């Protein structure tokens, strides 16, 4: 570290500052600083990649239901984002509590207790390691 990886440990300081700032805002902000519209954009990006893979594999797969689900999600994401901004602007503590509670449990909604097909330990329906990549 001292000679090659991080002379003066300056990069360590930078990472420390970054993680501290991130942890501070996640723990202390009046409104949990999650970006739901961005979560929707990310889903759309994954979906686009899926469509590319399907095309490349030259199979027929109906993705209409998935597309519709993502559209619904994007709508709801925009709605709660608006609600959150309003709550923050008007300092409505009841509304802030509701939004924070929903934000906190956001990712839980993607968990299926049964897990993925033939891989019950991977329960998050959005992300999992590659079937044969191990990561």
């Amino acid at each position, binding site marked *: 570290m001292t000679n090659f990886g991080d002379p003066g440990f300056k990069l360590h300081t930078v990472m420390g500052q970054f993680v501290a700032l991130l942890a501070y805002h*996640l723990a202390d902000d009046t409104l949990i600083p999650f970006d739901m519209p961005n979560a929707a954009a990310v889903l759309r990006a994954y979906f686009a990649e899926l469509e590319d893979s399907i095309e490349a594999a030259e199979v027929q797969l109906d993705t209409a239901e998935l597309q519709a689900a993502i559209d619904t999600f994007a709508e709801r994401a925009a709605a709660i984002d608006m609600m959150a901004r309003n709550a923050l602007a008007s300092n409505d503590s009841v509304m802030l509590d509701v939004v924070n509670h929903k934000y906190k449990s956001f990712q839980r909604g993607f*968990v299926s207790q049964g897990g993925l097909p033939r891989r019950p330990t991977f329960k998050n329906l959005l992300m999992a390691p590659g079937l044969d990549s191990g990561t």
Partner: protein
Amino acid sequence: MEDHLPWLTTTAVAYLNLDIAVSGPRTALAGTGEIHTIALDMMKKVLFPEEYNLGPTLYDSWYDRNEGVVPPLGSGSDYAAFSQNGIGAVSIISP
């Protein structure tokens, strides 16, 4: 982690993973969708050491490698137990 699942799933807001957080001057970040924005915003607030000429901020040093794309989490580090139980996470690795 599984021993504390009921407590974690009701209380945790997010999990910050640091896996060899420094091994060189390039940062790699991966995370769940809702947390990208705050993570990138905080990178913009941290000054990067001038001598590497990658700055001025940590965000600048990261951006040109990744073109602003934050990849999803797989299972390559400790965050897996959290993300697979529905706790959003950010993973910071230095490549």
